[in-house]
């Protein structure tokens, strides 16, 4: 009987909660969805993006700014937080950067970005929950993220509720983005990144004719045809069957010896995580393999973790202030915090694109923004001028975007920055 009482108390506890949830949300949703008028004085709405906003802006900020709440899904707990916890810092800096420049201008009004970040918990279920929360409770019209294959979980929710969502990047699974997902945009077409790796490899190691493709196994089925087509387009040949590895492996030496056995001119690792890249590279060098290796890097992480063993690396996507070729917005972003931090620049770039698309559309309606965005052929990105890519690949025109990609050569632990490479447009 007491048990029954406890259950009842629990149930009763739920009721005020329901009321509370209505009440709590009212503070944010009673006003027209997602736009609440606030003044940009000392009483700005709370949030990490606005608390640190400095007064020094080169544009004349209007006295009163309205707030545009933009959702973001980042995995802040569990394994993918290795990427997303870092991306969160830069996402907040990017929002601050846009706000400092006067926010997003729509129909003569300036809107300050306020980020609503939800934890995707590094799982599809967690991402479903985060997307549900943003769509149902926060009722946000624009969302940035998620990254990686987590779009599998979030795309259906966003599409059903007509929420414009800009993925950081994705795993090329048709369920993430296809001809019917008309609200789905993509900050970085992953094929262009792979293209930049191979292009810079060919540029700095012109003798390379055969490459060994070593990549993470789980995403490979979706990438396979596109990677093979890419290698063909560039006039290279694969040295053998792709070498697949699991990102949770402890020991990558067996993978390294498999690569070595193919004896390729170069090794290409388009998808993976730092532990796998570093493990394979160390293994290759220990085995005496001396050919160049290309993969996405963060230069200080590579030299820090590998020391002198870091040699013969053609790395892409490393963003450092010491790089003379760095784009202006990226340099500004880096200088907003510790300049030596690892900037992934995925979600921040998606937000940057979204802000410019909203301005171009001159509307806060996701459908109107989408319609306008589909007609754009150039948008600024954090990396410089962005361009659409992969219309045929995704079945959507101007939905997936690409940008110039930083290149760095690392030999004997020394980093040498090269001019940024503009990847080929993916068909």
């Amino acid at each position, binding site marked *: 009987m007491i*048990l029954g009482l*406890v259950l009842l108390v629990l149930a009763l506890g739920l*009721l005020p909660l329901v009321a509370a949830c209505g009440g709590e949300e009212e503070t944010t949703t009673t006003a027209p969805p997602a736009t609440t008028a606030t003044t940009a004085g000392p009483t700005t709405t709370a949030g990490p993006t606005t608390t640190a906003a400095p007064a020094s802006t080169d544009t004349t900020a209007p006295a009163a700014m309205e707030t545009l709440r933009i959702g973001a899904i980042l995995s802040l707990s569990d394994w993918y937080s290795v990427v997303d916890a870092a991306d969160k810092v830069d996402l907040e800096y990017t929002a601050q950067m846009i706000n400092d420049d006067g926010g997003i201008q729509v129909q003569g009004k300036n809107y300050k970005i306020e980020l609503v970040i939800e*934890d995707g918990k590094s*799982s*599809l279920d967690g991402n479903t929950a985060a997307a549900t*929360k943003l769509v149902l409770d926060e009722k946000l019209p624009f969302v940035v993220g998620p990254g990686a294959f987590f779009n599998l979980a979030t795309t259906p929710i966003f599409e059903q509720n007509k929420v414009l969502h800009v993925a950081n990047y994705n*795993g090329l699974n048709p369920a993430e983005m296809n001809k019917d997902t008309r609200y789905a945009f993509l900050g970085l077409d992953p094929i262009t990144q792979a293209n930049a790796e191979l292009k810079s490899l060919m540029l700095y190691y012109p003798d390379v004719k055969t490459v060994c493709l070593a990549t993470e196994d789980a995403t490979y089925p979706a990438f396979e045809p596109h990677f093979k087509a890419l290698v063909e387009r560039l006039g290279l040949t694969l040295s053998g069957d792709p070498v697949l590895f699991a990102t949770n492996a402890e020991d990558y030496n067996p993978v390294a010896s498999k690569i070595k056995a193919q004896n390729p001119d170069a090794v290409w690792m388009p998808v993976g995580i730092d532990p796998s890249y570093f493990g394979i590279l160390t293994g290759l060098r220990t085995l005496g393999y001396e050919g160049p290796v290309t993969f996405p890097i963060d230069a200080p992480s590579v030299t820090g973790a590998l020391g002198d063993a870091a040699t013969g690396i053609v790395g892409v996507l490393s963003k450092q202030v010491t790089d003379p070729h760095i784009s202006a917005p990226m340099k500004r972003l880096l200088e907003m915090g510790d300049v030596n931090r690892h900037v992934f620049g995925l979600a921040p770039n998606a937000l940057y694109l979204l802000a410019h698309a909203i301005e171009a559309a001159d509307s806060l309606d996701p459908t109107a923004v989408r319609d306008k965005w589909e007609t754009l052929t150039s948008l600024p990105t954090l990396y410089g001028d962005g361009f659409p890519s992969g219309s045929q690949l995704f079945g959507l025109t101007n939905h997936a975007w690409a940008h110039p990609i930083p290149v760095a050569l690392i030999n004997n632990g020394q980093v040498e920055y090269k001019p940024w490479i503009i990847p080929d447009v993916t068909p």
Partner: protein
Amino acid sequence: MSEVTKISPAPEEAARIEEAPKTRPRRWPRLSMVGALAVVLALLPLGISGSYYMHVLILAFMYVVIASSWRAISISGQFNIAIGAFMGIGAYATAIPSVWLHWSPWVTIPLGAVAATIVGAALAFPFARLRTIYYAMGTLFLGYVVINLITAGGKTTGMSTGLGGVQPLFSDRTYYYYLTFGLMIVSMLCMYRFEFSRIGVRMKAVAQSHEVAASVGIGERRNRILAVAFGSFFAGLMGAVYCHYQGVASPSSYGLGATLWIIMYILVGGINSFWGPAIGVGILLIIPEFFFRDLKGDLPYVTAAMLLIIAFTMPEGIAGLVKLVRGRIFDRGRREEVRADASGD
């Protein structure tokens, strides 16, 4: 391995069931409370329609069934660390035909439940001779094998990234709410019948001593396999519904981590009580999601703290505490009765 025998329900549980006819009048208030809770939950969508809280409650309903199905297996003395795998079999058995063959979810969901039952029962055969810690470890690796097969399954299973594009059952969340709520009621009734019936008593006898049970003609193997088949049916069914609700099937939802958290629900709620799993889900799933979601990356600290508090203060979980308190009150009441009788004389 004496500590493992504690897994099996306490002897007083069995004793209480035999007393059941005597205590029946007293159970009515409890059932009415459950009924009141059911009514409240049934009316809740009027208040929370289209909010995140509804999502959490839908998940909670499913996990109540899954956790209870684990307990249904455990009453026969089997500490099964493969419940997530049964969910996973249910989920992939419905997701694969749904995605690749475009079968209707109404066909594939029962298929998933049946598949989980068949696999569960078939695998229960070799495991029926393992006991205590060996059974626990055997099922742990069984779960690990199932997840590894899914991750190694190539394009068909979507590997570790998961399989997207599973057809939804409804477009409106409120229907899911009532579907899972209804399924929960029906499943809980089934499990209640199962546990407090002749079969349940046999299972508990097996759990306490398989030798004694065998001596009075209760076959250990048969009862244990039956328990696993029964439990895996509900786990598979909910795994299937879960995957249609989420729109994706992903191995991380069914792996060892997920299984251990399901077991945590039961331990927190109280393994020796029928309502334990439901209470545990309320504590470990609903409370963090409702009140602490804003902590984001720090949320695991809250659940860890809850586990520690309950492990330290409530050896039998929350239901155990409730039982203890109730016991004290009744004891006092009885003592007072006795005293009153004595004074009356």
